[in-house]
């Protein structure tokens, strides 16, 4: 915004003021912001789901300010939308056939779901190519793949928070010595140690690493090499930034990432970080560990979490959601009277319930879970897009 408040402007001659007034008028500079028409249900759903560009959000909010009726409509749409998210996808598909407002909301939501699911597979690649900072810029422009990437980052944050509730032996499984980060592509005898990994007060994630030899001495052996930082949960890695090692160190300061992950201010364990050096790519896992929050009968989180295993990726095929889920025997026994609730991350602030399955129906084998929703096109989803909870079985 320009700073016009200069002293000399106070002393402009009357003729100069007349000139600047006419110039401003000729530029239509005195017009108030243009108010768009009342937003449609589709736009309101996308607004609530944070799936518009910054510019579109500003337009919707100007319209809401100008139209009391639009604000009332937003409240009604939000109520429908909350109900729809908590319904199974099969129920949403049924609601979408109604001609009333709820039907409109359900149709808008299913359209957005279809778009979002289709972009999920691209999201990890986009994060790898653009990093979190590049993705943030694209989100502001309303890029759908970037919004899917943002959603995945949020879902990854949800997994991290569930991981914090896991018993320590599971949560710190892979990293070896304290402070060392899991690395692929490092020459033998070289390791990377964290000097700083912290979510700051302003929501940024700051990570600094030092390259060291086996004896623990800092070395410049990797100076000039590209390094790709990712967040890691067991087998899965979510790429977030790249950089070049300078001398014996590399550092990132990623604005807003801590907030996007939903992480509180404070230190982040190196167990959840991953570095790929040079052209080395993170491994592509055949199975995925998913942390599962245990919730009480009202759906409120408890302090417990367990893990389950996904065989392959969840997917939409022919209007049906499919995922192969294996449960550890101790989980089946401990939570025999519970059911598994599965939801799909839609935006960082919303998700859609897929369905629920009682745990007592599992055997030692993986079980294929399915749910029908003919409106969703075929798509393969990253495992982390799935949000799993264990809730006491109803009745």
């Amino acid at each position, binding site marked *: 915004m320009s700073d016009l408040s*200069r002293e000399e402007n106070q002393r402009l001659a009357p003729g100069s003021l007349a000139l600047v*007034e006419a110039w401003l008028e000729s530029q239509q500079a005195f017009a108030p912001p243009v108010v768009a028409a009342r937003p449609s249900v589709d736009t309101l759903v996308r607004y609530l789901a944070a799936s518009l560009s910054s510019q579109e959000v500003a337009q919707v909010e100007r319209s809401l300010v100008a139209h009391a009726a639009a604000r009332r409509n937003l409240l009604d749409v939000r109520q429908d939308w909350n109900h729809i998210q908590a319904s199974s996808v099969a129920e949403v598909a049924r609601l979408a056939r109604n001609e009333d407002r709820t039907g409109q909301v359900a149709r808008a939501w299913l359209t957005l779901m279809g778009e979002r699911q289709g972009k999920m597979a691209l999201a990890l690649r986009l994060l790898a190519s653009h990093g979190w900072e590049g993705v943030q810029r694209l989100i502001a422009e309303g890029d759908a793949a970037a919004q899917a990437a943002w959603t995945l980052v949020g879902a990854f944050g949800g997994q991290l928070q569930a991981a914090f509730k896991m018993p320590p032996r599971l949560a710190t499984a892979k990293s070896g010595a304290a402070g060392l980060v899991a690395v692929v592509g490092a020459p033998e005898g070289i390791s990377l140690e964290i000097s700083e990994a912290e979510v700051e007060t302003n929501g940024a994630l700051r990570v600094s690493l030092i390259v060291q030899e086996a004896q623990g001495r800092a070395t410049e052996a990797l100076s000039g090499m590209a390094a790709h930082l990712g967040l890691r949960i067991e087998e899965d890695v979510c790429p977030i930034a790249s950089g070049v090692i300078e001398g014996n160190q590399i550092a990132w300061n990623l604005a807003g990432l801590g907030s996007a992950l939903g992480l509180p201010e404070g230190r982040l364990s190196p167990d959840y970080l991953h570095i790929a050096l040079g052209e080395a790519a993170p491994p592509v896992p055949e199975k995925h560990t998913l942390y599962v929050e245990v919730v009480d009968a009202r759906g409120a989180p408890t302090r417990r979490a367990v893990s389950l295993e996904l065989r392959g990726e969840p997917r939409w095929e022919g209007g049906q959601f499919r995922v192969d889920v294996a449960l550890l025997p101790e989980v089946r026994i401990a939570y025999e009277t519970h059911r598994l609730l599965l939801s799909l991350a839609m935006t960082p602030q919303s998700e859609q319930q897929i369905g629920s399955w009682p745990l007592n129906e599992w055997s030692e084998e993986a079980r294929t879970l399915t749910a029908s929703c003919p409106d969703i096109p075929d798509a393969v989803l990253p495992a982390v897009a799935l949000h799993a909870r264990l809730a006491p079985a109803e009745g």
Partner: protein
Amino acid sequence: MADDADLKGFLAGEDAAFDRLWERARRFLHAYLKNTCCLNSADDREDVISAVALKVLGARACYEYRGIAAWYAFVAKTARWCCMDWYRENGKYGPFGEGEEERLGVPEEDYAPLDTIIEDLGTERIAEQIFHRANVLWLELDGALSPAIHTRQLLAAQYFYLDKLSAQEIYSALFPRMPEEPCLSREELDRWLEHPGVLRYLAYDALYFPDNRLAAYVLKVDDEEELFALVRQGQTSAPEEAAIGGFTWAEVRAILWFYGVFDQENREYKDGRFDYLFERLAERHPFTNQMARICSCLRAVPGVDTRQLLGKPPLWKRLAFQYSYYDRLPHKAIQERTDAAAQQVGFAVPLSTLNGWLSGRKLLKELLGGQAGGLSDE
């Protein structure tokens, strides 16, 4: 900057540059001749502008580049001379007399600050900048925040004070979070809802009724969309049939004409047949009700004295500025849309006050200088 590049191109003999430069100069001259030379007819202004164009083209060879403000000053001065000729040729008295250069001349020492103003504002989204500037200056919104956040603050205030949602409801569900924006904390939202600038913005928005909004209110339709639907319906409906708000379609059309919504060329409304209607429209105006509503909402805010918050000049200057510069309302109409509401909070906006604010471009000067011209009752 486009103007500057085109001016240099024009002086270098590029015709395309002149076309672009002159298109902007034409718009400038329409405003300038109307505001300063009392040429209210667009046709009359076009006559003068054609004469100015010829003189400017003729002066190209000897014109010396001195920046964009000097160019507009030159165009304006040429326009004043051509305008004097036009008045003389048409046998009319122009608004020119002794001291004309003092009144309308642009001294050379003003070129630099004018260049800065034009350069600063001329880059992009100029209207947004002016609107923002006026809100920061007179409503005292936080100048460090963007216009989009100001809108969001107003929306939060509307949800809370007008729609009666709880702060928790607003916080938890109504604003989408964008990753590039800092998270709005509950404490921040609470601060917004008590910020004097935000509360003044709420009052400004509730009290600002340009013609279309006022017509919509009088006719009891929700907004401009419904108003325009009414315009369309009015064009095909029988005049004597009942329309809306107890009016016939003929009366609805007359009301729409009165507020300048449509049918402006129609002279039948000036023949006195609808005076009974026009005289009573003010009774339906929203200003006192809106102010009472805002005062009632704000009484719930701890420590807020509505007279202190709203009964001072800046809020009313903000309204006067918008009505005068954008809506082009005469002072009398501005008074009708401000004074009654102002009196409810212990202030008054008589014509003498408006003349004081709006004559000599004082409000524009305040805006450009960034100083609200005193908070005391004037």
